């Protein structure tokens, strides 16, 4: 009959099937089927066939898609809190980002989407974004007069401006040609995207200044979430958590492979001192000066020392759970 025994979750994302996120999702689907004894299943639609990241979030809200993976940057227009992850050098290191995202702050941000019908399930690693261009960039001054393609967000624009470059909007699809023809002098992205987009063919320098670490986020429609029993939610949570471990491992692998591959293709990788870049972008933080909630969130993230946090994590997490139960 129509009331099927198997609960199928439809998951759409915009990445290639070779991407670490897709691999992790397939693992998640496999595990969910195993844990639930075949009662739950995930259908994955990769490559953006069901829409871009922003469009997929809208579909989650409209109720025609259950789960999607987006960059935290895509969530900025929906849930304000995700904006802070787009700030340059908000995370001091990979360890810092993991401790924040895995800890109470991460859980808090994931749950902020609930009132917008977009419940966050977990964060996936998307590494750090750095500049690549046809001329070497070693310090912020080298960006002077360079047209740098950035994502269409005010934070990205403010960041490149603060460093002295000219931020330029070009759609991702037209970027290869634009770089080749020098419509823009450079762009910025994480190593796997730099490699998979073939932009290394037209940009010979990759500066590992690691200005932003914008995580990927797995988001579920609250319409779909409501249809799950507590037991089913538990199964899903377990499968999701297991997929995070797989994704991080796969991401590290793909990051390293990407860097080795572009180097083999003749790209000069510039390992630079980050401090001048950090100093240059402090004005970007002024964007959120007047926003009480974001300012305090920013401060809490900055204060979250990885070593210190580990001790407090357990107790914080329990209080948060109690709080959400009360709501």
């Amino acid at each position, binding site marked *: 009959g129509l009331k099927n025994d198997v609960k199928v979750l439809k998951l759409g994302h915009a990445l290639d099937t070779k991407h670490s996120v897709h691999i992790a999702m397939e693992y998640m689907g496999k595990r969910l089927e195993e844990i639930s004894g075949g009662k739950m299943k995930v259908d994955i*639609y990769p*490559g953006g*066939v069901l829409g871009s990241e922003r469009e997929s979030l809208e579909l989650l809200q409209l109720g*025609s898609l259950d789960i999607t993976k987006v960059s935290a940057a895509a969530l900025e227009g929906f849930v304000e809190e995700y904006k802070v992850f787009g700030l340059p050098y908000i995370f001091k290191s990979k360890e810092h980002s993991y401790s924040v995202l895995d800890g109470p702050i991460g859980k808090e941000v994931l749950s902020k989407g609930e009132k917008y019908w977009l419940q966050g399930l977990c964060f996936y690693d998307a590494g750090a974004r750095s500049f690549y261009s046809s001329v070497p960039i070693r310090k912020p001054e080298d960006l002077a007069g360079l047209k740098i393609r950035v994502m269409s967000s005010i934070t990205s624009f403010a960041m490149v401006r603060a460093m002295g470059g000219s931020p330029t909007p*070009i759609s991702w*699809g037209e970027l290869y*040609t634009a770089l*080749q023809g*020098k419509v823009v002098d450079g762009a910025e992205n994480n190593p796997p995207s730099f490699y998979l987009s073939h932009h290394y063919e037209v940009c010979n320098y990759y500066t590992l200044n690691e200005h932003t670490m914008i995580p990927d986020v797995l988001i579920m429609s609250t319409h779909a979430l409501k249809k799950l029993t507590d037991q089913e939610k538990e199964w899903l949570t377990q499968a999701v958590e297991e997929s995070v471990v797989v994704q991080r491992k796969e991401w590290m692998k793909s990051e390293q492979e990407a860097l080795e591959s572009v180097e083999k293709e003749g790209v000069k990788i510039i390992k630079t001192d980050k401090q001048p870049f950090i100093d240059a972008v402090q004005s970007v933080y002024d964007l959120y000066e007047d926003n009480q909630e974001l300012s305090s969130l920013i401060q809490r993230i900055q204060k979250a020392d990885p070593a210190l946090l580990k001790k407090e994590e357990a107790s914080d997490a329990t209080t948060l759970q109690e709080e959400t139960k009360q709501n």
Partner: protein
Amino acid sequence: MELDMLGIVVLIFSFIFFLVIGTPIAYSIGLSAVATMLVSFDTLPAFSTMAQRMATGLESFSLLAIPFFILAGQLMNSGGIAMRLIEFAKVIVGRLPGGLALVNVTANMLFGAISGSAAASASAIGTIMGPRMEKEGYEKSFSAALNVTSATTGLAIPPSNILIVYSLASGGASIAALFLAGYLPGILTGVALMLVAAVYAHKKKYPIAEKVPFRFAVKKFFDAIPSLMMLVVVIGGIIAGLFTATEAAAIAVVYSLILALIYKEVTVKHLPQIIVNTVRTTGMVMLLIAASIGLSWVMSFENIPETVSYALLSLSSDPFVILLIINLALLAVGIFMDMTPAVLIFTPIFLPIVTSQLGLDPIHFGIIMILNLNVGLVTPPVGAVLFIGCSVAKLKIQDLVKPLIPFYIAMFVVLLLVTFIPELSLWIPDLFGY
């Protein structure tokens, strides 16, 4: 699984029903898409998802090039530019056997290249060349058949809106590469049509054009230069990296506006009407695109591309045979369907097969698709360019069917060459490093 099959059945049968009774294609696409959605969704998610897919379907920077090239074409559409190009073509090919017939093809190639519209080309060149050819003894139906088929070459020769639509449907094949890939196949089609025309004219002993004095030829050349410069500005600007393909289209608008104002073909007073005409074509194309994007969402959701590809690959494992089947399927589609919806609906279905199973370059397949559907533009019962060619020649469609046959064969031969010799499409883009 049963539910999935039900969706496919609803989709196909409702679509055919809507089309056959004469519902506008865009509405037919949207209605059958939403009917299919209602099989697996509640009403509000289904309706609002379709609305969202339609709106976001237009939310693509590359698509902007379409209204811009249409507007540039409208500005170029005045008789003056067509006339200059015809005179220029006469200098180049007028003295060869079948002189005026070759002039017709060449002028169509040039005008189609610039305006990017086969329909505009067929009407602009056909209006002028039809009576001239008739005066020299050509049969009217032959001239009209030649005119409509050669008008389609401008869709392969860049700039070309249909290649932009293909880029969208393919999920982002480079527009610059597609533009460069179109040159040889477009010119080859033109040459094939000229060969057929020359043989025919030779058999019928039609005259060649009178000799043009050298001084005069030089003048004709210089007259045509400003119009031809548009190609240099647009394609050159993209290759040189002055602007992206989309921005090039906006530059084309500015260039053709300046040219039209200088030639006094257009005054500022005419501009609103020209823009309204542009919006008319744009609105038609955009609703088709919007509805098709909605449909392709539904098709992806129902896993239809995979189903079709599975069925196709079970027919044969020979790449040659599969490509031939796809070509014949597209030709059949072209007989009944206009080019834009055909590209939007069938690219997502066939492209994954030819790229992952047959190893074709998406750029190459784009050109195959355009050459293929070009034939459809000049076949009854649904053939936009054929209709326009008939109306300017004041002929009935059935008058053209017989004289069209040798030209169909020429187009089909070129299609096969382009299908099985990838270098014809990919050599020039390779040369420029795409």
